[in-house]
């Protein structure tokens, strides 16, 4: 498989989740594990351009696919515009939800560069945040949308 543009390989157990493989075998702990059951969005990544919860994908299923994780969003160590917007808007408190959210927002803005409030609510309602109260996440999406 390709991860963030680099061909990678890993020995995995049958039944092992892609999230586990990324975090514990491939040295990519940016995607967070907060539920392991597809309820929180902290592990959101792109698989062949589609947003998925890495905890719900088997590592073996990712074989031959193209993955982008939070670590691969920004280019050459700089922040991706969505990450920049999160920082600027103050949309990061503890930050445990943030990697999943920035991947989800990047995906949303690619599909819909000027999303309505309702579109934002719908697209991000699977990404839980217990700290920020989401208001600044709205702000961040709006900031990022003006820059895209």
């Amino acid at each position: 498989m390709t991860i963030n543009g680099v061909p990678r390989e890993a020995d995995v157990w049958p039944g092992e989740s892609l999230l586990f493989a990324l975090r514990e075998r491939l040295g990519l702990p940016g995607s967070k594990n907060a539920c392991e059951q597809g309820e929180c969005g902290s592990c959101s990544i792109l698989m062949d351009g589609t947003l998925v919860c890495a905890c719900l994908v088997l590592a073996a299923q990712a074989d031959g696919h193209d993955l982008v994780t939070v670590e691969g969003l920004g280019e050459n160590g700089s922040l991706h515009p969505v990450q920049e917007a999160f920082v600027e808007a103050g949309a990061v408190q503890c930050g445990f939800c943030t990697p999943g959210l920035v991947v989800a927002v990047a995906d949303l803005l690619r599909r819909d560069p000027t999303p309505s409030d309702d579109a934002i609510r719908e697209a991000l309602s699977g990404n839980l945040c217990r700290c920020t109260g989401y208001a600044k996440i709205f702000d961040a999406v709006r900031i990022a949308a003006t820059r895209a």
Partner: protein
Amino acid sequence: MADAPQRARGEAQYTADVLLPGMLHAALLRSPHAYARVKKIDVRRALEAPGVHAAVGPEDVEALTDEPGFFGAPVAAIAANTVEQARAALELIDVEWEPLEPLLDPDEAVRRGQLTDEPRRNERGDFERALADADVVVEGEYRTQVVLHNPLETHQSVCRWEGDTLEIYTSTQYIWGIRSRVAKQLGVEPDNVRVVCNYMGGGFGAKNDPGEYTYVAAELARRTGRPVKCALTRREENLAAGNRNATIQRLTVGARSDGTITALGGEFVNAVGWDGWIAPTDGPMQTLYHCENVRTVTYGAKINTAPMKAFRAPGYVEGTFGLECLLDELAARLDVDPLELRRKNYAHSSNERPYSSKNLMECYRRAEPHWERRHELRTRSDSTWKYGAGLASQIWYGGGGPPSYAWTRVGSDGRITVITAMQDIGTGTRTAMAQIAAEELGVPLDRVRVELGDSARGPFASISAGSSTTPSMGPAVRAAAADAKRQIIEIAAQRHHLEERVLDISDGNVVSADGNLSSPLEEIVGLLENAQILGKGARGPNPTGMQVLTFGVQVAEVAVDVETGEVRVLRVAAIHDVGRVINPLGASSQVEGGIIQGIGHTLSEQRLLDPATGTVLTQSLDAYRLPTIADVPEIVCELIDKPDEHLTNLGSKGLGEPPIVPIAAAIANAIRDATGADIHSLPITREEMLRALEAAKQKQRGAPAAV
């Protein structure tokens, strides 16, 4: 935020990301019964399972129990190469359970005298007499449910023994508390316990203590000679990681017909659970209003449910819901404006001690334009959707206190490092501390770095709970920065043959009052070559004889669908008085976060039990119903931002908790305004809303025909 880029990139290292060489993973066996005795436990088969290295039970670790008092109580643990192997091996632990009859009803526990502690009684004046003399008396019973912290990073620790020193990487709100508690429990010297928490993914009060996961990891690490991680799953987080306990509140208010409150009384039953303490549910009734005759009693019911833990303003969230709903019922009875009623009963000085500062009247004044909106709002109502507004006041602690220490180091390059062994629970602590040091030292913010999170690399720092991080730590950092500044000015004065009192540091330059000297900090400190300037700071005491409290008021606007019972919160205006505000962006984010958590508490969140067995029915985030981005109303945040002149060198109080305190009552009062229905029970699900509407109808019918 200073460290937001690392978090947004996924580079910040949380306990969940700690991977040590040779690390094993632990899994916990939890009780499937709400109350039981373990008659026999045999781990031999589990020890044979693939990848398993060790197992521990109630005899090995004190935090494990052979008499589990709640569903999910930890009984045994396994360490294996992978977490899957550890979980699989749990199935092979042979346990003979003797199920016992669980007690789940808190009122029944009080009747039987099954209490966690002596009932707490507080009385002043003559309540009975004042009640007998009152023109009006309003009574009400209010209930609040169990809610769970559910921080996104679950409770977890990684433990490693290095000789006789125990290293603990843990997701905690109190590095030094973990250090002393673990040292005491394990009988080792506190200096032989090193606690590290660099980044953590939320706590909300649930991560103040070590927890079974830490003790289990420490013991399994000792037995195996390998590092061991013990991380709770989301399911475990929903069973046994702490909660805001349910309450039953039987409240009475007596008043004169002009609205003067003359008597307040409350019987509070806190459903503490199998273990825990009695949160001050009576606090708001004791302190929010001026009233000479107040009598409260609070019971801690010991029942077969998971132990409570502190949860963002424990007691005050629940107690404010009851009291502030009762006040609005009184306002309705007297036909006075709810805001006026609160002003009329304003506590100008507290009963025993003066306030260090109190600007609640100013909060009320700033609430007026928001409160005025209700007239227009109500006109939007039609036969299905009813609109209304409600308000509630807030009182809570938040002054912090000593001891807390910080150091500053100024290098010859003129850069500043703040060092303190505090934790950042995700509230922008690094930013706030950097801002305080930068301001005091007169340097741009980007010259300051903050090193924290390691008990071996910095001085003692206080707990991040009780809205105390900024008010406790901020003054220590400021004092450490002032100490460094004094030394820099001393050097500059000697070098330039000037008096110290004419020198200052501004925008990174040492400047003289007459403007003749302006020398970059690095030039002055650079004279020292490798030497460094070290500043030390300590948190001073709180003002003696004074109460340090936070205040506020919130106005909520709601729409209620009277056919389906759906409640929508449309807008919340939050006005709080927390002394000086250090970081306005971070502060408004705290307010918004508190309000959304409070909306969850008010409308959707609830831990549900099987009433017969005490089994937890809500074991996932979906079942538990955490608020999502779809639930966010318009939030207007106004902070008074007046430094508390009596409080420390900073004048700041904490803001973590105040915003969650009044929101439930503000929403409930808005619902009454919109529909006429009294809300007495949380959460206000659709069923609860329909029930309240029906009760209101009955009441109207039953009322003497006035029309």
